[in-house]
């Protein structure tokens, strides 16, 4: 548990970047949400890439389970984790209804990608190609999805 610094609730990736526990929890949760099935810690570890220690991933999963953010089931000798769908949370439809009400919602909400025009698709594909050519590690995406 020492190598990943997981005991103190933070991890260090391959670039030597220290990241707070909250950010690592986000990333682990994101992997679980993106997957169709429950994942065992080894799968989560593999999906996140080589940067994080296995022990760190395991600790984060246990912590998320303790908080009730994920549920787990026994698969052989390991636990498989899946995110908990909060019954009190908003459904996608309710959220879209709230978002669509009024055209000036961007006054408050900052969205990652705004609405796109038809001709943007080709330009974006070209730009994505250029971006992938620039950082070689981008071509081989970790098989998480």
């Amino acid at each position, binding site marked *: 548990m020492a190598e990943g610094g997981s005991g103190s609730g933070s991890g260090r990736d391959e670039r030597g970047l220290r990241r707070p526990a909250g950010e690592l929890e986000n990333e682990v949760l994101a992997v679980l949400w993106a997957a169709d099935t429950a994942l065992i810690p080894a799968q989560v570890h593999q999906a996140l890439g080589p940067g994080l220690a296995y022990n760190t991933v395991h600790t984060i999963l246990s912590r998320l389970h303790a*908080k009730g953010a994920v549920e787990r089931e026994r698969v052989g000798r390991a636990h498989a984790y899946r995110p908990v769908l909060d019954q009190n949370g908003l459904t*996608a439809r309710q959220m*879209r209804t709230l978002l669509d009400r009024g*055209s000036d919602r961007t006054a408050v909400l900052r969205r990652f*990608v705004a609405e796109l*025009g038809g001709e943007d698709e080709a330009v974006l594909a070209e730009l994505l190609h250029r971006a992938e050519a620039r950082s070689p590690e981008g071509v081989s995406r970790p098989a998480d*999805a």
Partner: protein
Amino acid sequence: MRLDVYVPMLAALLLGAGVGPLSRLWVPHAAARILVGAGVISAGCWVWALGLLGWTAVGQVPLIARYGGWSVTVLQGADPVSPAVAYAAVGMLLALTVLLAVSAVRRTRAVVRSWTLARRLAPAANGELIVVPDEAVDAFALPAFRRPAGRRAVTRAGSGHIVVTTGMLQALGPDERRVVFAHERAHLHGHDHWWLLAAQLAAAANPLLTRLPGTVDYLLERAADEHAATAVRDRGLAARALARAGLAASRAPGRPSHGLALGYGATAVTARVAALLEAPPRSRRAALVGVGLALVFVLCCAVDAGRDVEHLFELAMYARH
């Protein structure tokens, strides 16, 4: 009074016309704040100057002159402002009051809507992250206007939540998701929604600044992109994440149906990706000094014009006694 009362209008005209070139003088984070600051000061001076011009006409209304205790004839004789200009200023002020009120109501409603969204999404939050099971490709920063009352919603004070759909998570790789998280976190920590709100209100007070909110909106997105690129230490990765998210969003079935609310329209995302593929932007100190000096000059003119109007009315008061 003859000239300096018109300086704020000239300043607003220049700022309104030059908002595009000006925005490229500094890194996006700084440029957004400088332009909002300049816009608010310029809009304030503009309203003040209109008020001064209008007051020279309103002060000549006999009833008001009697209450104020000054002479209408002296005021008429000494007033350098032509009645046509003065009444135009009064008319414009009335129109602007209506515009500002409409804008304030709309912004308040947007804030309340987003607050409702935050309150209803809060129970599903884990820390700052809220995942919504939805095939639409969407992610946004949801500022906390009040400490959320959710069970697990323990966020740092003054920040808010990052909302992301499963559609977005599935479209991106793990390293690309970190870009999205860092981008939205930058919005929350920068309190970007307040900066945009200030720009919108400045534009409502001064129609010459119509292009300011759109430019500030784009700059805030660019600033968050740059922050994310720094956080993951890879501009190419940041560009990739944004391009992939944009592509997925344009192909997703649950694509939002509403119009182009951003003003910058369709090219904003592609422009942001292209900017990330270029070298990091740099700021020009000299340009900041120039804008600062110009604003000080405008403020001095506004103060001087105010003093001139005060003297005018003092003159009219003494003449009566």
